């Protein structure tokens, strides 16, 4: 689950991590009032779950409360990466001595948390890694000890800080680590972390992604956010409610399969035969008839779909259940586009008998099925 900047900063402040003074506004008037309260030049930032907000015009400066109202009006009308801006964060514009990068994420290969820092913040860490990798400091956290104060001081020193600033920055990193541990964070970034001309460190930005699998441990946080973990359209919502993995794509062939790897491979096979998938729909393991019918229903709600490919390799999923689900969907008149069924594995014969009786054709190999559905989709255009 990705948190908005202002939601992440609420958590930062709960851990005594300094952020610039300000607040969240949903209207230009609120933005003006907040700017007046700050009493200094401010920055007004779009609150959307998207990177590159600055480049999209979602981050603007204002010297007066009236200006803050004007820029808030501009930003609140924007769409950034197809997301409409519903709120802005109004914060004091800081007197910058240095922009710093601080982040923690997970290294898949080492299977460890990795703390990342750089004295050259501001640009994205990917760009920085491309341009001057020597300016990036990394520390892999020992899972048996966690991230320790001396680790944090070492990072600050390697990032070029000296004297009192070593401890000040180290404390910042340690707080970030405490947040990661307390909230099951899989990725956090402060970019930039600002060192002001008067020697203070403040989190000017905040990115915080919480592990979806750990949300059961964070009911209190979820309640305080007062929103769903992710923004989903009605089809995505229905799929999630039914424990299916569902991704919408640009093509016109809905691929309904069991298992993530098989579904991906089916999408690839469709492409290999000259078609394009509209839908990745993984029914998951052990789908029964009802679930298969629901999967077909979800896939057909997407207007782009011109044909359906059902590809089942029966393991814990039983072909007779799949056949019953297909039959139920057809008998309810749900299936409004051409459909190709490929079904093998557990209870294959029983399943095929059900389809035979119902006059629904089926194929035995993925290749035949993929090539046939591509042709049907072309004819349907």
């Amino acid at each position: 689950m990705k948190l908005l900047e202002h939601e992440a900063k609420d958590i930062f402040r709960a851990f005594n991590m300094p952020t610039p003074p300000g607040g969240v506004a949903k209207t230009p008037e609120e933005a003006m009032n907040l700017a007046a309260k700050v009493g200094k030049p401010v920055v007004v930032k779009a609150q959307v779950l998207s990177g590159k907000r600055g480049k999209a015009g979602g981050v603007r400066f204002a010297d007066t409360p009236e200006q803050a109202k004007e820029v808030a009006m501009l930003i609140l009308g924007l769409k950034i990466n197809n997301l409409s801006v519903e709120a802005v964060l109004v914060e004091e514009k800081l007197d910058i001595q240095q922009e710093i990068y601080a982040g923690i994420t997970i290294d898949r290969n080492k299977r460890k948390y990795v703390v990342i820092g750089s004295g050259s913040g501001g640009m994205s860490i990917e760009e920085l890694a491309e341009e001057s990798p020597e300016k990036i400091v990394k520390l892999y956290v020992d899972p048996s000890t966690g991230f320790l104060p001396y680790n944090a001081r070492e990072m600050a020193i390697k990032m070029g800080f000296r004297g009192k600033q070593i401890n000040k920055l180290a404390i910042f990193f340690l707080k970030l680590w405490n947040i990661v541990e307390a909230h099951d964070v899989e990725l956090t970034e402060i970019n930039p972390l600002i060192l002001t001309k008067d020697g203070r460190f403040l989190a000017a930005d905040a990115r915080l992604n919480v592990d979806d699998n750990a949300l059961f441990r964070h009911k209190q946080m979820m309640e305080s956010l007062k929103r769903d973990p992710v923004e989903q359209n009605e089809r995505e919502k229905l799929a999630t409610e039914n424990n299916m993995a569902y991704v919408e794509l640009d093509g016109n062939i809905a691929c309904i399969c069991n298992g993530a790897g098989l579904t991906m491979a089916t999408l690839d096979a469709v492409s290999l035969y000259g078609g394009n998938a509209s839908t990745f729909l993984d029914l998951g393991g052990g789908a029964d008839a009802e679930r298969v019918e629901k999967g077909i229903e979800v896939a057909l709600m997407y207007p782009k779909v011109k044909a359906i490919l059902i590809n089942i390799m029966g393991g814990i999923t039983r072909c007779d259940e799949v056949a019953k689900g297909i039959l139920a969907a057809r008998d309810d008149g749900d299936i409004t586009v051409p459909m190709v069924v490929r079904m093998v594995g557990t209870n294959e014969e029983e399943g095929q008998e059900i389809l035979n009786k119902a006059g629904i054709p089926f194929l035995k190999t993925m290749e035949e099925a993929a090539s046939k559905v591509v042709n049907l989709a072309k004819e349907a255009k």
Partner: protein
Amino acid sequence: MAILADKDTRVIIQGITGGQGTFHSQAMLEYGTKIVAGVTPGKGGQKVNGIPVFDTVMEAKEAHDAIAAVIFVPAPFAGDAALEAIAAQLNPVVVITEHVPVRDEIRLIHTAKRQGITVIGPNTPGIITPGAKQKLGIMPGHVFADGPVGLMSRSGTLTYEIAAGMTYAGIGITTAIGLGGDPCVGLTPIEAVKLFENDNDTKALVLVGEIGGDAEERAASYIRENYDRPVVGFIAGRTAPPGKRMGHAGAIISGSTGTAQAKIKALNDAGIPVAEKPSDVARLLQDVL
């Protein structure tokens, strides 16, 4: 011979009284797996499918001389169940459960590593050795045949698809390992290659990968330098868009890393042919065996 599970592997099932545990322990018994005990805290003394249930892993191990653990415990408690199996020195520990929090995964993986214990998964179909009629997992046993090929994969049904194609072509396997679909898993592809390297019966390898991370690239460079038997690859997700999780938590292209194209190139550069379709894997194997 085989790796990780052979005819002497005595298995306990953690979470045996739950729906999944009961269903799959029955399927495992039917296949031939030597399940000696089950564990569910608070249900000690019961029996499931004729198997005695214990309250703790240590009790089950001591009573029945168990070697390995298979875990069906729900995600919030799976990490703890794995740590209990590791503390009892069971090896390997196979974590079938999906949606285990990554913080718990990191902890259990490193605790096992320090003690030299192999963790398979989480989020894996498990391991199967057809020659010994042993499966520690949820895969349909009948699609796998005994033979000379080692099979490793990040996904479940795709592995069954490929194994079924191999079986149809008359090519069997020593052991198949589901490595798991999560970003952080216990046994990595490189470690799996090393295990197969030490097994003289494994004459060739199939590496089934998918988008996300760079474990396949790393395995490819290890194979290029160290592994001299033939290897055939398959990579799922050639058409997957960046930034979307494709069913598995680990199957996501982040920025420019984790693409199928990069993995295919790395495998090809290591002299490993990569099948375009799952059914081509058996064909490519016939060329090299």
